[in-house]
């Protein structure tokens, strides 16, 4: 019985890893630029979308004769911003950025970013996530 349970757990774990890995795009193009905005606390989806649109409208669709993409990584608000304030304290004092939102932002970025040239524009708490995202990217093999 113990073996059976252990085996089922191993099988489920293998499936979970497989599902997680197939969602990430492994190719990034050298041609093109991407700008990503990351909002701060107390900003809803509407606000994040507005930030993205506003920034996109300030630029022309191309830069250096290469396509320019502007998008946003959404940093959701929790418990009217109170939970985010606690997160910010953690991020300021012990440089801790491994919460659920960071995982979501990383997954989101892996789907959205298709260029090798990337500019992260963080606002308020978004800067903590921007820094953490930068660290996560430069730690990856193949980064230059």
């Amino acid at each position: 019985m113990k073996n059976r349970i252990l085996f089922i757990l191993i099988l489920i774990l293998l499936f979970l890893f497989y599902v997680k890995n197939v969602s990430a795009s492994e190719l990034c193009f050298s041609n093109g630029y991407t700008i990503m905005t990351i909002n701060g606390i107390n900003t809803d989806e509407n606000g994040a979308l507005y930030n993205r649109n506003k920034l996109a409208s300030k630029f022309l669709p191309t830069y250096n004769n290469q396509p320019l993409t502007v998008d946003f990584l959404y940093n959701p608000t929790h418990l009217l911003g109170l939970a985010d304030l606690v997160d910010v304290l953690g991020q300021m004092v012990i440089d801790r950025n491994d919460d659920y939102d960071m995982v979501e932002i990383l997954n989101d970025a892996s789907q959205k970013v298709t260029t090798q040239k990337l500019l992260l524009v963080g606002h308020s708490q978004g800067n903590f996530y921007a820094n953490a995202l930068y660290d996560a990217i430069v730690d990856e093999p193949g980064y230059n």
Partner: protein
Amino acid sequence: MFFKVSWVRTILKILKWAFLILLALFIVLVIIRAFHFYNQDKIDAQVAKIHATKLTLDDVMGKNLPPDPGSLADATVQGIDANNNGIRDDVELAVFKEYPNSAKTRAVLLQYALALQMEVIQPMVNTVTATEVIREQSRGFECIGEIVSRENSQKFDEETDILIKFIENRQFNTEERKNDRNLFVKKVRSFSGLNRVCDINYSELLN
């Protein structure tokens, strides 16, 4: 010997269970995918319709302006669209009233209004259709910036904000419409922007 037979039996049992679990997972996956493909055609058709919805030059020139909807304008979230051009009549008339002498301004504002109205007339709202509508809205938003000079960044912000707020304040002018908007945006998932080509080539318009 007894130990070996028992050991082989355990392995066979585990393999049998592994096979049964994999089979069960496969059957569940097939059932889920069957539902998915059943709906996919409908969703694809809706997405194609969303991206095929364009502003026309006749809309910009006011060749088929609707009558004033009066108090009926805010009776429902969808509002009134008597001339069936996809733009809410009260918003359309407000644009013409405010910018009677600038076809370029009307072109970009009506495109944005058309994209915003799409979110309340969708026959099915799910993450795919909501995201595609928002992509069209973002294209409309960016188009507004196309008619404003970028020489002075602060002035650019002020002028585009005036134009965007002009449409959004009218489009989301009731609590019900604001709430619906918030619920709609929550369905949006990751997306990349569409090519920034305005529906109307505003550079060919005289004013």
